[in-house]
């Protein structure tokens, strides 16, 4: 099955090279696409030289937008499976087979890698509170029961990628994807994955210490946008 690995990247020159290299070592058949979201550093050059297909956003549109660009490209080129993989080195390449397996076997349309299903991840405490609140919010307002709703490690079948509409360009896209999965009645499965938090990846995260605040912002924006439809 034709598998595309989509890596949205914004100013990840330090890690994009090693990430692409590790993906290449792992499996030559996967097609690696880096969506460069108007990085100001050498992300584009490094990604291209390391051998990924590079799509460049001329202006910064957000991670959600970058993922959709990747999805759209993959679908237009006949993808059967699309994997979302982070550029910062937090995700492990070895987890990919487990994430795509349920789709290959036809048992799921969407697979999410969960940090909380058994494998150990060294999650910092400040993040844990926001994650727990996020989970509660989704459960109460949308009836979504997942152990790791904010996971960016996803695999989508072609059918799922075609059906899911993501309109949120920025951080809210993660929540929107989940809502779409449940709205469009796609079969969703979680598998355990390991996420490695390093000092680099923590400093580099969009929100740093204000996880809770941005979590509240995301919740607020999602509700307002739902009301406006």
């Amino acid at each position: 099955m034709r598998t595309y690995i989509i890596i949205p990247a914004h100013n990840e020159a330090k890690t994009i090279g090693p990430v692409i290299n590790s993906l290449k070592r792992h499996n030559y058949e996967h097609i690696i696409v880096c969506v460069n979201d108007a990085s100001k550093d050498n992300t584009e050059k490094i990604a291209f030289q390391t051998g990924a297909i590079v799509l460049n956003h001329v202006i910064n549109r957000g991670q959600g937008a970058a993922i959709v660009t990747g999805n759209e490209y993959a679908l237009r080129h006949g993808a059967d499976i699309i994997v979302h993989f982070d550029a910062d080195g937090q995700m492990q390449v070895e987890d990919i087979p487990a994430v795509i397996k349920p789709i290959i076997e036809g048992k799921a349309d969407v697979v999410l890698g969960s940090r909380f299903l058994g494998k150990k991840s060294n999650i910092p405490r400040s993040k844990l509170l926001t994650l727990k609140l996020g989970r509660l919010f989704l459960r109460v307002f949308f009836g979504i029961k997942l152990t790791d709703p904010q996971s960016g490690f996803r695999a989508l079948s072609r059918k799922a990628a075609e059906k899911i509409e993501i309109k949120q360009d920025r951080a809210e896209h993660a929540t929107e994807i989940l809502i779409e999965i449940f709205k469009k009645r796609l079969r969703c499965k979680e598998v355990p994955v390991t996420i490695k938090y390093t000092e680099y990846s923590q400093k580099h995260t969009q929100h740093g210490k204000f996880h809770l605040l941005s979590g509240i912002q995301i919740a607020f924006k999602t509700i307002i946008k739902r009301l406006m439809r």
Partner: protein
Amino acid sequence: MEWINIILILFLLFALSRSILRYKGKEIRLNEFIFWTAIWVLGIIALASPSTVSYISQSIGIGRPADMIVYLSIIILFYINFRMYVALDNMDQKLTKVVREVAIKREKKK
């Protein structure tokens, strides 16, 4: 009638004439034209006949006509703000669509 009333009425008539021109020139749609015309006309009525405004405000239970005008203005401003937020958001999404097409068409492959 005070001078200020006359000046403001003239200004609102001018604004009204602009609205009519814009509508004729197909720059704004019918519902937008009606909305703005209603606002200008209400403003002219309020300025031309303050006693009408007093009458209305008394009958809905607001003591001072000026208060009623302020409340109404705030409501209208909120509504306009909301509409602008939606329009901006839509434009933002369209912008992303363009950026996406350009990114896909200009793919860089070895």
